[in-house]
């Protein structure tokens, strides 16, 4: 049976991880490659590296990091942050990334999804969607959550699937950082109406939140950052728990 995936996400700035790293006693705690490798040895099913650098030099540093990850880590990984055009995608895939995550750029220029799918195949595209439940329904947001779009979450999710996205990474801004669980109702609505895998993001605080994202939210994968980085939830323990809860998990 296909396993549900657990994906730690690492924010990278100028080649170094940004958030805390208490989960292992790494000498090079700020090195995303060492951290990624430690996660992979602890049972992470995939890794996600987000470049939060703005500068051109930062981009170069990030690309070098992607090559090092590809050389040293033997599980799939997604990279994202600041992808504007197909050349960015090409640069990151050539550096060895398995998938790229695109966010605002897809909303501003939806045909970018078609273009990437045509050149590299759907399997490389993770379309990240940040959304919030406003009084008039779920809306997409861009620019790191600062800019509301009239575009509805479910309409946009359907459109990116039709345009050739391989997966959707859905972050509920209402749930992100609150640690009260994932947006399971919206997740289920996405998962039940789309035919591509849905990755849940935003809200993990306890182990049962992951279970609920799979059982109630019907998600195919769950992504989290701080609960892993701060060692609040060790991945081996999480996976053991999920398996006890009868969820298909790779151990």
């Amino acid at each position, binding site marked *: *049976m296909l*396993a549900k*995936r657990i994906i730690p996400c690492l924010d990278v700035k100028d080649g170094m991880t940004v958030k805390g790293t208490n989960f292992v006693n790494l000498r090079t705690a700020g090195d995303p490659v060492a951290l990624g490798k430690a996660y992979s040895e602890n049972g992470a099913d995939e890794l996600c590296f987000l470049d939060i650098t703005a500068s051109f030099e930062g981009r170069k540093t990030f690309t070098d990091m992607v090559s090092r990850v*590809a050389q040293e880590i*033997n*599980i799939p990984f997604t990279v994202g942050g600041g992808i504007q055009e197909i050349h960015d995608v090409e640069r990151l895939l050539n550096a060895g990334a398995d998938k790229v995550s695109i966010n605002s750029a897809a909303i501003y220029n939806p045909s970018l999804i078609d273009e990437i799918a045509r050149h590299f*195949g759907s*399997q490389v595209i993770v379309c990240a969607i940040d959304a919030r439940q406003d009084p008039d329904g779920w809306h997409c947001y861009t620019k790191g959550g600062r800019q509301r779009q009239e575009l509805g979450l479910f309409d946009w999710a359907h459109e990116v699937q039709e345009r050739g996205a391989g997966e959707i990474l859905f972050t509920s801004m209402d749930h992100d950082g609150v640690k009260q669980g994932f947006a399971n109702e919206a997740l289920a609505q996405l998962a039940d109406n789309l035919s591509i*895998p849905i990755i849940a993001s935003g809200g993990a605080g306890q182990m049962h939140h992951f279970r609920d994202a799979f059982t109630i939210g019907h998600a195919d994968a769950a992504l989290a950052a701080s609960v892993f980085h701060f060692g609040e939830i060790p991945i081996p323990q999480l996976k053991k728990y999920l398996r006890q809860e009868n969820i298909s998990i*790779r151990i």
Partner: protein
Amino acid sequence: MDVAIVKYNAGNIYSVINALKRLGIEPTLTDNAELLAKADRVLFPGQGEASTAMAYLKEHGLDQVIRDLRQPVLGICIGQQLMCRHSEEGNTDCLGIFPLDVLRFQPERHDDKVPQMGWNSIYQLVSPLFNGMKDGEFIYNVHSYYVPYHKDYTIATCDYILPYSAALHKDNFYATQFHPEKSGSVGERILKNFLEL
């Protein structure tokens, strides 16, 4: 050890090159018939679309070069599918090394997403390719097409919508539908076993 990787138009071969380097091998990426013929091992990996890949192989004479290889050969993902007789993808006549046909997954329930993307377990392991491994090990998959189970050629099965061939073997030809280069320590073991055949 001299390990060659078939160079053609179905990328991403970087991960295979990196995986071999982690095992201490510096592979040669080539479409040169002589270099391929004299290598100790040949890998035929790739991701892509069957008809485009097959057209390229024929145009460059690589179809016959691959069929004529005598050393252990390992096809991966689209490589495995191209080694079969025919693929539903683009209604393509393939290399015919395995007398088997490649079919597209037909979802039966909503949970059956196509492509299959992620980790799944393999069973009925009957080949030195899986030395030191037990049933139920997890491997990483990304694919929309599959080869049905066949009693003579299937050396590992996987279950997604239906039981299918996760790996094949005939004479000096081996192939996996999954990506050993992305399957963690299990995948590394399989690649190492291949080099030690």
